[in-house]
């Protein structure tokens, strides 16, 4: 047998420094500073009390970079309780400390001079001249994240990797926020990889009383970081800053004190801050040590405890329990529904007990209970006295009034009874920050002036949420403000969830506060673009131009020169982000060449750079009445990509050869350079087209386009496309400064609107076909599923009973025809109303990845197209950017970025885009609503009379739709003098002349006023019936 030898990596002879490492078969003294080119130190570090399965010391083969990083020992780590595979872990000597003066770490990979020489000094307790740095533990991150992100920018913070790792296991959203904090370049936050560093790596200790628990171990690891830093800093600075451990764990603090370290609780730390900072931060501190333990809380149990997790999972497996998203009702705050795929009807949860602390959006587990549980028992005791607040009777009454009895309709026939359920567990809380008002009724008169900490209630803007209890010291200042509040917990002993104040948004009904609250409420990311994102823009900025044509220019590679084409764009007035332009010209063979030119956004937005990821997370540009929140930086959206007239721009063109009847003969896709001849508004284009005296090529091409568009539309209608209706309003703002309203009118539709729409549809369909053909698994498409027939049942019942009409919902074509037939000769608006109501029965369209849906389900119901995508607005929709990239790859212009070949990745992005789209629409609508409210207020003394249609009847009221304002409102009758006929959807209302029946589809006149809710400060539209009978006093 030969000698036991150790062979060193026999390869890479070029790397000469390895030869020195060859002999390095001996342990290196530990205190010797490890620089990048010494051999690896093989000193085994064993966790005490355990045999380490370690390799014999030898050379560490170095790959690739030729830089022999001082990787150190490996330590097998046991997984869990000694079972399962061992994990290997190495400890390193090249972890950088981030101190700007450090001489030891400056050469280590990833070193950045983040931590300043002089720490934070504006603190009464830690007022040493050299200042202090903070080290935070996991609980601080988990519970005080809002505080952390509000701490002064100049305060240096060290986050040990133990904290990051633990946060990641506990809560992903918080982990993401922590990442944001770390990446914020303005802050001095440094991550110390303590588990990876040799000096601070920590092992579980065997103790007399048994193994050290994981929490104790983590705490010790964090303390070790402090210890290391204070020693390490001494080597490069004579008077390094103090290190302060921020933790709410009392035991951890005691242990730290025992080791001579500084440790402080969050509450004490914030209390000691400079008064100005303290004022800002004091309300952000959550609970902390002084809080009474949940078990000690006074008061009786109001809710059932959730069942233990194993019972829940077993229940789901046996089918006794169901899981679903909790949707709180918009009409009734004590009611919610959960939709479960295995049950054909959504399950009703009625009353606080049944809802059992679920908040809108939570994933809950519930059991189905037979029979209807009514909320009678709980309805009246709205706020308990022992919680320090009382709601006066008036408010209670009002709340009761507001509750529209939506159940009534379903209770009518036994077969319609919805199953009811009771929540027994919550799988996932989807709590976020909510925009709220302080509830005035929860403040005593004394509280209005007192600055002491007190418990108050905040009413969320959204009706679907419960009130939130919070403790604050600044109640008097917050009374007229919109504030942001998050929910922290909801114990079974408390009727309302506990939360904490995040920040104030501004005065109620001030534009800024309303706007910001809207954006927050609909989760629209509205932060300005960061530096990393702006760095992705072309350096020339505004002066960027298409370079002159040359063979070796990057911009001109494989691009077609279409600058001579007569191209124009048609958009709404004041449109700045012009993403499409059109052209048409007759061909010698009698056919017509038509082209759609779309801004070439993918030329500027490259895959996987910061700008791209930001755009992907924003998903869409959000249009509010007075503001636009861009998806892409301003420079791109309104300048470089925008197909402005008279300048050369890069475009992605779809060019067809069409017969005069609109049949496609040929289609091609090409990257191009165009120069638009004119930017029209819809109106200007219409005027130009209709002006018979003009006969220039531009006008003729508009006419040509228009004639084709008419043909295309006919074809589409024949195929069964629906023309649906939803009220679109236009808000006139008086002037930019005052922005005082304002008038509202409905948008007018012209022929040219339809022209642009038809060509965009055609382009989208052509592109969809192409990318689906080339990338069958990952093409970005858009579909609109056919609505289930049951969705129309209610509407059809209404139509049959009230009008003797019926919708044929067997196919989209049949529906389109029967919608056309739904006319009331006396009332032309009736048809529009039916269309609006039919639209509400449909499903919404969504983006999807072609590989995750079967081919039969690709269809677009509304457009009657078998395949569809979005391609034409890449400036404002992210899905279009993806479609651009895929099309560019499909025509071999570029190769497809790998991320776009992964189905999972595309699915993930599109899910986000779908969500953002939905929220953006809702935000847009809410913004219009806000302005409609302002407009109503300013109109003749705040009272407006308008025609309205009854769209729904309730036991105690009516829902009406005011088409001129696009406004839906409720009329409630609190006195029980009317008679409700649920079979015929009508209510008989008493009047001096006898009962007058009002039924669905009847035209009525309502008086609209805007009144301020005393508690919530929320402007609320109130409607009163004026004709045929006045409902005042009912």
């Amino acid at each position: 047998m030969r000698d036991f030898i150790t062979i060193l990596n026999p390869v890479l002879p070029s790397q000469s420094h390895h030869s020195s490492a060859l002999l390095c078969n001996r342990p290196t003294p530990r205190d010797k500073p490890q620089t990048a080119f010494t051999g690896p130190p093989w000193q085994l570090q064993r966790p005490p009390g355990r045999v380490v399965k370690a390799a014999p010391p030898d050379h560490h083969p170095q790959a690739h970079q030729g830089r022999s990083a001082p990787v150190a020992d490996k330590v097998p780590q046991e997984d869990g309780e000694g079972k399962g595979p061992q994990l290997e872990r190495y400890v390193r000597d090249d972890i950088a400390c981030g101190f700007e003066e450090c001489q030891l770490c400056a050469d280590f990979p990833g070193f950045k001079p983040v931590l300043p020489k002089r720490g934070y000094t504006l603190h009464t307790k830690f007022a040493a001249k050299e200042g202090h740095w903070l080290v935070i533990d996991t609980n601080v991150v988990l519970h005080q994240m809002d505080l952390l992100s509000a701490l002064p920018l100049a305060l240096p913070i060290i986050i040990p990797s133990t904290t990051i790792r633990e946060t990641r296991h506990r809560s992903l959203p918080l982990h993401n926020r922590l990442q944001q904090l770390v990446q914020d370049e303005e802050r001095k936050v440094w991550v110390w990889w303590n588990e990876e560093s040799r000096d601070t790596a920590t092992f579980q200790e065997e103790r007399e009383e048994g193994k050290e628990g994981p929490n104790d171990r983590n705490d010790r690891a964090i303390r070790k970081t402090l210890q290391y830093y204070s020693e390490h800093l001494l080597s490069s600075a004579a008077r390094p800053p103090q290190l302060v451990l921020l933790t709410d764990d009392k035991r951890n603090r005691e242990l730290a004190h025992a080791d001579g370290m500084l440790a402080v609780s969050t509450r004490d730390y914030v209390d000691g801050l400079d008064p100005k900072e303290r004022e800002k931060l004091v309300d952000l501190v959550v609970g902390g040590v002084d809080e009474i333990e949940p078990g000690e809380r006074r008061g009786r149990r109001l809710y059932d405890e959730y069942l233990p997790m194993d019972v829940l999972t077993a229940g789901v497996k046996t089918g006794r329990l169901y899981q679903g998203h909790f949707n709180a009702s918009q009409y009734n705050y004590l009611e919610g529904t959960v939709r479960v795929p295995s049950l054909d009807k959504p399950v009703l949860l009625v009353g606080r007990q049944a809802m059992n602390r679920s908040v809108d959006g939570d994933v809950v587990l519930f059991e189905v209970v037979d029979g209807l549980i009514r909320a009678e028992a709980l309805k009246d005791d709205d706020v308990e006295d022992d919680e320090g607040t009382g709601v006066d009777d008036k408010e209670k009454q009002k709340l009761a009034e507001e509750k529209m009895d939506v159940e009534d309709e379903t209770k009518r026939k036994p077969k319609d009874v919805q199953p009811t359920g009771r929540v027994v567990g919550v799988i996932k809380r989807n709590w976020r920050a909510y925009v709220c008002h302080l509830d005035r009724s929860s403040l005593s008169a004394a509280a209005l002036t007192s600055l002491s900490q007190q418990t108050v209630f905040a009413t969320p803007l959204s009706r679907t949420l419960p009130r939130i209890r919070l403790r604050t010291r600044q109640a008097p200042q917050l009374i007229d403000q919109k504030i942001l509040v998050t929910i922290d917990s909801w114990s079974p002993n408390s009727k309302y969830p506990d939360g904490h104040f995040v920040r104030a948004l501004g005065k109620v009904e001030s534009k800024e506060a309303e706007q910001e609250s809207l954006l927050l409420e609909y989760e629209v990311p509205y932060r300005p673009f960061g530096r990393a994102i702006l760095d992705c823009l072309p350096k020339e900025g505004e002066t960027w131009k298409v370079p002159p044509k040359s063979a070796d220019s990057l911009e001109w590679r494989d691009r077609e020169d279409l600058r001579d084409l007569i191209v124009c764009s048609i958009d709404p007035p004041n449109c700045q982000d012009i993403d499409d332009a059109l052209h048409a010209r007759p061909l010698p063979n009698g056919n017509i060449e038509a082209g759609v030119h779309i801004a070439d956004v993918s030329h500027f937005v490259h895959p996987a750079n910061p700008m791209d990821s930001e755009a992907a997370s924003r998903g869409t540009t959000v249009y509010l009445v007075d503001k636009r929140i861009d998806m892409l930086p301003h420079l791109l959206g309104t300048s470089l990509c925008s197909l402005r007239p008279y300048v050369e721009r890069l475009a992605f063109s779809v060019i067809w050869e069409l017969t005069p009847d609109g049949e496609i003969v040929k289609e091609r896709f090409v990257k191009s350079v165009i120069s638009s001849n004119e930017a029209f508004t819809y109106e200007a284009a219409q005027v130009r087209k209709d002006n018979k005296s003009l006969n220039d090529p531009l006008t003729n091409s508009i006419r040509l386009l228009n004639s084709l568009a008419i043909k295309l539309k006919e074809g589409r209608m024949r195929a069964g496309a629906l023309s649906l209706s939803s009220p679109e309003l236009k808000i006139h703002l008086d002037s930019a400064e005052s922005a005082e309203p304002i008038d509202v009118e409905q948008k007018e539709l012209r022929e040219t609107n339809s022209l642009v729409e038809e060509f965009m549809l055609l382009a989208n369909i052509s592109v969809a076909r192409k990318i689906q053909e080339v990338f069958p698994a990952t093409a970005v498409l858009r579909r609109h599923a056919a609505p289930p027939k049951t969705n129309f049942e209610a509407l059809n019942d209404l139509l049959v009973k009230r009008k003797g009409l019926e919708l044929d919902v067997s196919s989209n074509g049949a529906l389109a025809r029967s919608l056309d037939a739904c006319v009331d000769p006396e009332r032309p608006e009736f048809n529009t109303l039916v269309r609006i109501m039919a639209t509400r029965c449909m499903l919404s369209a969504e983006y999807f990845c072609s590989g995750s849906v079967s081919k039969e389900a690709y269809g677009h119901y509304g457009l009657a197209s078998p395949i569809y995508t979005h391609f034409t607005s890449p400036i404002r929709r992210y899905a279009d950017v993806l479609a651009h990239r895929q099309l560019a790859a499909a025509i071999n212009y570029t190769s497809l970025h790998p991320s776009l070949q992964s189905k999972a990745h595309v699915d993930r992005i599109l899910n986000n885009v779908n969500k953002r789209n939905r929220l953006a629409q809702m935000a847009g609508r809410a913004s219009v609503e806000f302005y409609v409210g302002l407009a109503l207020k300013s109109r003749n003394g705040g009272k407006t009379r308008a025609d309205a249609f009854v769209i729904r009847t309730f036991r105690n009221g009516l829902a009406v739709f005011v088409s001129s304002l696009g406004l839906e409102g409720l009329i409630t009758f609190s006195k029980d003098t009317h008679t409700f006929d649920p079979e015929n959807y009508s209510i008989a209302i008493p009047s001096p002349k006898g009962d007058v029946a009002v039924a669905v589809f009847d035209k009525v006149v309502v008086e609209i006023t805007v009144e301020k809710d005393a508690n919530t400060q929320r402007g609320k539209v109130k409607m009163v019936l004026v004709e045929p009978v006045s409902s005042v006093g009912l």
Partner: protein
Amino acid sequence: MSSSRLEILNDGGLRHDARRPYELRSTSFSLGTHPTADGSSTVTQGLTSVSVTVFGPREPKQRAGVTHDRASIVVEVGVALWAGTGAQRRTRGDKRLMEVGAAIRQTFEPVIMTQLYPRSEIFINVQVISADGGILPSSINATTLALIDAGISLLDYVTSVSIGLHLTQPLLDLSAPEENDLPTLVVASLPGSGKITLAQMETRLHVDRFEEMLLLGVEAG
């Protein structure tokens, strides 16, 4: 810690075991570990340990295995029961192991100068003693050493490494948790000539990345 929660590459550019992307695990090679074999070696890469014994060239045990003009190569792969490959026990006839064996045979067929040993057999026995990812590359490295130890003529020695891809970042020498989560490429190359004798991949990957990984793998070898 479940593997789905494992962070492959953290923000500090460190892998779950605190290596950087291009760093290999601590590796030890020993030769002549088996006294009765013609050649033997044990290769340990991290917690993966593979012992290879080579017998031959010798008279083929089975007549069918005889080729008149060159030596035939027979590879047998076994995994120790305690090796920690998870719940499933790998027995001798296991398909996965046969595949590893076939990969090793194919890797070495062009490298061993088989024409020098006609009508004989070279028997390679691979025993995985502990497994923590990268069984195939470790086996190939160990086989090279065992063949050298046995004094069998080789054109060049063969080195092998596994390469994974996390987003756009290639990682070298994957451990078991990484191997579960990432597309993995195993490259065996001849460092003398720069030729590649094996490139094996079981997952789909983008072509552009493949080239990058392959080059890296060759260099790392």
